[in-house]
């Protein structure tokens, strides 16, 4: 088997938050945004990460790229652990890992031209490059992402959202990275533009042999682009499987509930009949439930779920659940009754 490009073991991100007006000696409250995430990513593979708002998707991405301090292990292909590297040593890897952001316009400096924006990573990593060569490479990459190279001197506000996202992609690609982390790259775009950007990403991935970590809350987009999908809930991995397996036979109750909520483009389809409701709201991340974090909303939770934390088990299809398996009719009916009450 080939060595994975990135092997993440027990990644944890904890924020120490202080409330406004706290005394300096008051201990800060700890928020476990990501707790104990494991996954591995092969070169050229796409890993989709899905979950509700606030489940730690974006924090996970920022931890990998070193924007937020994290603990645990993230082993790069050359055997180096990326977590806790000094900024100087991390510099070498920033070349290989690039990121695409959610808000296309906000991720571009309004006072810089497109050419300057795209060239920034290139100049940062190769300060000795001559100006004409930089311009040449910027123009080449603009062509690759479907922008007219003669628009190099324009400013971000002169472009549409989709074009801005292409600029963001060009900026990520120009240093020829091995991995691009896409943090909800299409959720700010409308559907037809989403398709263009996704297909562009797929095309570029094939061309450059890129690995992608694709974060989204839109399950159908993730299905389209990912090889494998990881489901997060409250900073923990619930289920990881190949896309086909996860979408056709989800085994974790949370994944099943999540998938049942995907809109179906069919006006005669009765959503209410197929949806599995989840009781209550997302628990506070300051005080996550004991044992399995999903137990407070799970239709199948028992005493064991509160006492023991389930460990992800399985080979290619990993599930962190004591009682995996498709939900039965009775369980769904029971969940509906709770929801109605």
């Amino acid at each position: 088997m080939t060595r994975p490009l990135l092997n993440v073991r027990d990644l944890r991100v904890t924020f120490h938050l202080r409330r406004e007006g706290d005394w300096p000696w008051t201990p800060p409250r700890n928020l476990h945004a990501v707790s104990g995430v494991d996954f591995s990513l092969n070169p050229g593979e796409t890993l989709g990460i899905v979950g509700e708002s606030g489940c730690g998707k974006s924090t996970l991405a920022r931890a990998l790229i070193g924007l937020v301090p994290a603990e645990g292990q993230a082993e790069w292909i050359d055997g180096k652990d990326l977590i806790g590297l000094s900024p100087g040593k991390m510099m070498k890897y920033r070349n290989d890992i690039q990121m695409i952001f959610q808000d296309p316009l906000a991720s571009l400096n309004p006072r810089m031209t497109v050419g300057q924006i795209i060239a920034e990573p290139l100049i940062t990593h190769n300060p000795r490059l001559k100006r004409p060569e930089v311009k040449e490479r910027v123009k080449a990459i603009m062509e690759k992402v479907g922008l007219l190279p003669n628009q190099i001197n324009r400013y971000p506000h002169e472009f549409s959202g989709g074009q801005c996202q292409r600029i963001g992609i060009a900026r990520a690609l120009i240093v020829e990275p091995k991995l691009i982390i896409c943090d909800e790259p299409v959720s700010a775009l409308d559907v037809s533009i989403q398709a263009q950007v996704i297909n562009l990403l797929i095309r570029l991935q094939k061309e450059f042999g890129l690995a992608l970590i694709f974060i989204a809350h839109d399950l159908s987009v993730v299905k389209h682009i990912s090889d494998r999908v990881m489901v997060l809930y409250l900073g923990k991995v619930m289920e990881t499987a190949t896309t086909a397996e996860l979408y056709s036979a989800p085994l974790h109750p949370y994944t099943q509930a999540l998938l049942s909520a995907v809109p179906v483009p069919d006006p005669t389809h009765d959503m209410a009949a197929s949806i599995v409701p989840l009781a209550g709201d997302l628990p506070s991340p300051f005080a996550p439930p004991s044992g399995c974090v999903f137990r407070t909303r799970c239709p199948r939770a028992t005493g064991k779920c509160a006492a023991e934390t389930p460990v992800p088990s399985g080979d290619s299809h990993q599930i962190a659940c004591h009682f995996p398996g498709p939900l039965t009719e009775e369980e769904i009916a029971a969940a509906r009754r709770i929801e109605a009450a």
Partner: protein
Amino acid sequence: MMIEQAKMQSLADRMVQDDVKGRSPWADARKRFFRNKAAIVGLPLLVLVVLFALFGEFFAVWSNEELDFAVMGQVAQMGAPSIENGHYFGTDDLGRDLFSRTVQGTQISMMVGVVGAAIAMIVGTLYGAAAGFIGGRVDQIMMRLVDILMSIPYMFVLILMLVMFGRSIGMLFLGIGMISWLEMSRIVRGQTLSLKNREFIEAARATGVPGWKIITRHIVPNLLGVVAVYATLLVPLMILTESFISFLGLGIQEPLTSLGALISEGADTITYGTIWQLAFPLFFFVITLFAFFFIGDGLRDALDPKDR
């Protein structure tokens, strides 16, 4: 078809070939600025005042130090503005030419305003941007220091400084410069805090751009709008401060003069019927302030169209 194929083809080629010139946010702002009526009145006014300050002395018949003995002693009767004897603005109480004194006063007042605003701009921007960008404890300490300095009644300190270390123009610049950057650094810090969490800063950090480059390349250019507006509004405030100090008799010393000092002298002698001694310095003082305020307002509307 009626459309000439060759022409259309060449047009299409040109559109693909040439690098399109972008319309920068600055160009947009310039357009909005020139649509502002008050600002386009203020701009030529300011240019005229500056030209007056720079080149006025070439038109003066009398220097600012010469005493006109023909006028001395009967200023109220003989010292009125006249073309014949070369005192275009009349003379002051001692028989000195008010025209060249006004030119000199305008020079000094402008210089105080511009130097004060420049110190505020450079020190305030760097201090505020650094505090906001570094954040945490450093930010706390830096901003508390500003709070402490601001809580000192600066006019009192300034007057004490001038009394203790002698009334020199250098001391006046130092004193005004020291107080002017405080407000600016607060404004800049606030702006930096809101910029810091924007995604383009995060993108720069993710790709490994060093901190000082993020400040100079990403944060400062995005702050410049606010800074420019505040600086133009600061210039008249500095002029006012200097005038007040000079009015108290602590600022600029003879033979130098400033608009504030001239107005003070003019006000003293107004009971003798020498109205011109107050009117001319006051006129230049007022149009300078008006011009700066109009331009500052115009810049604000042009640079932050959202915050109107």
